[in-house]
């Protein structure tokens, strides 16, 4: 136990003795974790928005001319239990189209009321894209169904984009981890170099590499945790400031909460990532030096 206490004391003493190097290392890890966090939060938020969009968009079954709207509605209720089913007459369809066009509604002047097909719409707030796809497949069995649509094309395009974004993100994350580890390692090498006399004397009096290296590794972890904690704090602050603005600008983001963008699990991962980055950088900087002394 006293060895652990001694180890922590040596690490904290060393941090106190080299405040400049500590500050530089913490700042580097802070920037790396913050950038990673922003990327992960943006990706997570975009995924949430995609899900919300999919949930907002109804699955529409357009009926062939002459099909029985009431029978189609009843069939839809059977095929998609638990969903809100609505029968939309051609007149109601045209009215909604006019409303959605707003000031441009005049383009519909002269269009006859029966020009749009009758339709059945199925809605479930918060429905995922997969659920929408599955529901659409089932609703194709509605008697008289001519076409089933749920905005699949653009939602799928968005989903593909996010999938690619996730892959690019992982590659960027890997590259950034290596770059930051090298950068922090070089910073910490300054700390190791500044204490070369101490290391040399420790070696002369019989200290093992593990005894010499352990406080440096603990220092690295502490610096990483500190940088990570600052980055997580900054991300919390940024999301608190940014989300109300996003909600006001984008109605679909109305239900987007801070937990959607920066969930607790992501905060812990970023914190642990900072610690791991500090540890990796310390190990890199120390290994070479100890072999040389």
């Amino acid at each position, binding site marked *: 136990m*006293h*060895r652990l206490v*001694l180890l922590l004391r040596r690490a904290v003493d060393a941090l106190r*003795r080299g405040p400049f190097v500590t500050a530089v290392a913490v700042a580097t890890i802070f920037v790396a974790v913050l950038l990673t966090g922003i990327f992960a939060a943006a990706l997570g938020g975009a995924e949430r928005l995609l899900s919300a969009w999919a949930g907002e968009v109804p699955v529409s079954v357009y009926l062939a001319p002459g099909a029985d709207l009431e029978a189609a509605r009843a069939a839809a209720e059977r095929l998609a239990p638990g969903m809100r089913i609505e029968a939309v007459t051609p007149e109601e369809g045209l009215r909604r189209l006019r409303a959605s066009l707003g000031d441009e509604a005049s383009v519909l002047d002269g269009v006859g009321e029966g020009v749009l097909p009758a339709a059945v719409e199925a809605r479930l707030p918060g429905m995922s894209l997969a659920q929408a796809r599955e529901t659409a497949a089932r609703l194709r069995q509605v008697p008289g169904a001519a076409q089933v649509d749920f905005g699949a094309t653009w939602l799928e395009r968005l989903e593909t984009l996010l999938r690619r974004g996730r892959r690019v993100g992982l590659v960027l994350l890997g590259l950034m981890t290596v770059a930051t580890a090298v950068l922090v390692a070089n910073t910490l090498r300054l700390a190791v170099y500044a204490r070369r*006399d*101490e290391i*040399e*004397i*420790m*070696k*002369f*009096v*019989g*200290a*093992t*590499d593990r*005894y010499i290296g352990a406080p440096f590794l603990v220092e690295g972890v502490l610096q990483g945790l500190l940088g990570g904690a600052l980055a997580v704090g900054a991300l919390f602050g940024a999301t608190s400031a940014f989300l109300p603005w996003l909600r006001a600008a984008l109605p679909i983001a109305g239900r987007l909460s801070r937990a959607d963008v920066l969930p607790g699990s992501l905060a812990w991962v970023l914190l642990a990532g900072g610690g791991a980055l500090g540890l990796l950088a310390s190990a890199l900087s120390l290994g070479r030096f100890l072999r040389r002394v």
Partner: protein
Amino acid sequence: MIQLFHVFKQYGAEAPALSDVSLEVRKGEFVFLTGPSGAGKSTLLKLIFCAEPASSGQILVFGRNVSRIRPSGIPYLRRNIGVVFQDFKLLPERTVAENVAFPLEVRGQHPREVRGKVTQALRAVGLDHRAAKFPPVLSGGEQQRAAVARALVADPALLLADEPTGNLDLDRTFEVMALLEGANARGTTVVVATHDRGLLARHKKRVIALEGGRVASDGDSVRRAAS
């Protein structure tokens, strides 16, 4: 205690720092290693201390062939060896007591035990009243006594001193030599590298003289010549 067989040490393309050195230091001996600057005294101590490997030849310390000791085993060999340097090698930002405690801390000894032994070691070198001071405020003699205390605090079987009195005046030299002789009297084998002929003249000990990296003489001849 120490045995060297046909030891060579060469740095790059330069002339060998040590050339075909063979000698033996027995347990409990007090040996002066002397010779002009560049004779190879410090190099020899470094090889014994495993700070550097020999280019060829065999070195046995405590009966162990140092060339066969793995790097991870070297610290454990060093724990039986105390070293005193001409430039003291004390850490300026640590107190005298903390400097002396170093060898005990690296052995993982309990802080209470460390405190007791440090107090005892500092008392033995007459520095117990300076324990809380930092090395830069100490005189050269005091710093060297602190370095001797650090070298002896863990009660090593072997003490290597590289020009331990090189930076000291005559009175301080007497003090430090008295400490080394005291350690030797308690059973520690002591090897002192020095080019101070006066020191050899004052102390009737075995003298190994090096010249150009070779053993020029072994015995008391140099001391006689100095006298």
